[in-house]
């Protein structure tokens, strides 16, 4: 039976993290549009507020007040539930993300398994939403999403194994703690087995997992209108949208913790305790998020067979080889 004080602090942390994540999601859309715009020599949103700073709020209000349409042939229950199935796992996964050395909301010792499991459940939302819409575009988008998520989750999970071998823990807080003492101790560069190959595989699989360009086959505009959320509008559409961006933040957080040292400062003479941890953690997350937009602005969408070939013939063998080499080196130098 936990005492009242700890319950209150936990609730307060939940509220703070939840609010921060939702605010980040809102302004991530703004950030994306600005980055994409400037990379294409445009300005991005400029009208609402100073340099368009209120644009996410205006968009949110618009989506909130839009008419709620359920197509005639759609399965009403699944159609309603699918966006929630998509959004909730993306948000509750943040319970295990440690933002500083004070640890996450819930420090469980299987945090990585928990996150992988939840990201797989999120794929159900996409698949069910695509099926329940009773539209060919949605169905094809959902099917593509299912195939893509299965292919890339293997590579994603296996790219994490190297880090787990080195750290000997599945808890994100323990993994980040193990990378203390300068950037050469971060697992992306760490002796004895630098995990930069795994880092690249992780990033590519993460982009594919979150259905971002160049792997956005489930919602390829030129082929499938909008993919699995063709029939969605208003708040339900906003849920899918929120889920996509929350997932982006989530995979960026996980990547920053596993490969870039989480809240650890880049040099060991710099402080990384308390709020300093957040100070070091956020730039890493922002850099990874920027990388998402950067890659989106640079690369065209893959064809479907190219996507599958990249996943099964290149990423998974590479990840397996990385596990072998890492475990060998870790065993030798132990």
């Amino acid at each position, binding site marked *: 039976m936990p005492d009242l004080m700890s319950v209150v602090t936990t609730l307060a942390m939940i509220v703070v993290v939840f609010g921060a994540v939702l605010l980040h999601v809102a302004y991530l859309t703004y950030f994306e549009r600005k*980055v994409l*715009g*400037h*990379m*294409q*020599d*445009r*300005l991005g949103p*400029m009208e609402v507020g100073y340099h368009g700073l209120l644009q996410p709020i205006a968009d949110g209000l618009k989506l909130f007040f839009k008419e709620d349409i359920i197509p005639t042939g759609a399965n009403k229950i699944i159609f309603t539930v699918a966006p929630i199935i998509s959004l909730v796992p993306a948000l509750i996964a943040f319970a295990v993300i440690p933002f500083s050395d004070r640890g996450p909301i819930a420090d469980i010792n299987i945090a990585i398994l928990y996150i992988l499991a939840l990201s797989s459940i999120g794929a159900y939302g996409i698949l069910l939403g695509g099926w329940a819409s009773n539209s060919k575009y949605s169905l094809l988008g959902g099917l593509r999403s299912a195939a893509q998520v299965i292919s890339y989750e293997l590579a994603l999970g296996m790219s994490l194994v190297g880090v787990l071998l080195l750290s000997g823990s599945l808890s994100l807080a323990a993994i980040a703690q193990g990378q203390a003492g300068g950037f050469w101790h971060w697992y992306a560069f760490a002796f004895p087995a630098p995990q930069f190959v795994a880092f690249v595989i992780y990033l590519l699989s993460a982009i594919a997992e979150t259905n971002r360009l160049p792997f956005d086959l489930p919602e390829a505009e030129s082929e499938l209108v909008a993919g699995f959320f063709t029939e969605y509008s208003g708040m339900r559409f906003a849920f899918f949208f929120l889920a996509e961006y929350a997932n982006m933040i989530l995979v960026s957080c996980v990547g920053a913790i596993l490969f870039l040292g989480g809240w650890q400062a880049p040099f060991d003479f710099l402080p990384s305790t308390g709020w300093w941890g957040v100070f070091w953690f956020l730039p890493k997350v922002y850099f990874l998020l920027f990388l998402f937009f*950067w*890659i989106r*602005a*640079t*690369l065209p969408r893959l064809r479907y067979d190219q996507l599958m070939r990249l996943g099964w013939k290149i990423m998974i063998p590479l990840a397996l080889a990385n596990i072998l080499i890492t475990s060998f080196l870790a065993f030798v130098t132990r």
Partner: protein
Amino acid sequence: MASRITRLLKTIFLVEILRGLTLTFRHLFVRSITRQYPHERPDVAKRFRGVMSLLRYQDGGEKCVGCGLCEVACPSNVIKVVSAEREGTPLKRYAREYWFDLSRCVFCGFCVEACPVDALAMTPNYEYATTNKRDLLLSKETMLALGDQYFPNQPPKPAYIGSCESEMYLLSAKQQHYPTKSDDQG
């Protein structure tokens, strides 16, 4: 062989993708070419071809003589001229009605070139979007108002129309003796 190895290395280290990434990153700092339209308007060229207008002389008389050459010159059948004689002066004509369908106009400017009295002019106005298609059918009055708005300082009526010189020319033309059938017989 060596080229194959470099190609393989390039593929492994994603060289081409990194080059693409540097290109897009450089463009992040290139000055954007967007013009914030309603706040910042473009400089329209001096001879910009916008909405058509009809002109007047300095004394307020319409320049148009209702010849209908603009109607003939128009490639998309935009113009409709109903010509009429001026009351009391049978030799002078004017456009009793002048219709200009802006929804079909291609802004080629052929009508302006065809006009013998320079009665047509293209204004620099390009903001004529409307929610009602009928607003795009311009009548003579609208076009004259547009002309007054955009080209207010027009020259006076040239001497050759209706002036004493022209009257004398007409008189001499009437007095001139043309050979007729009776002349041949006589």
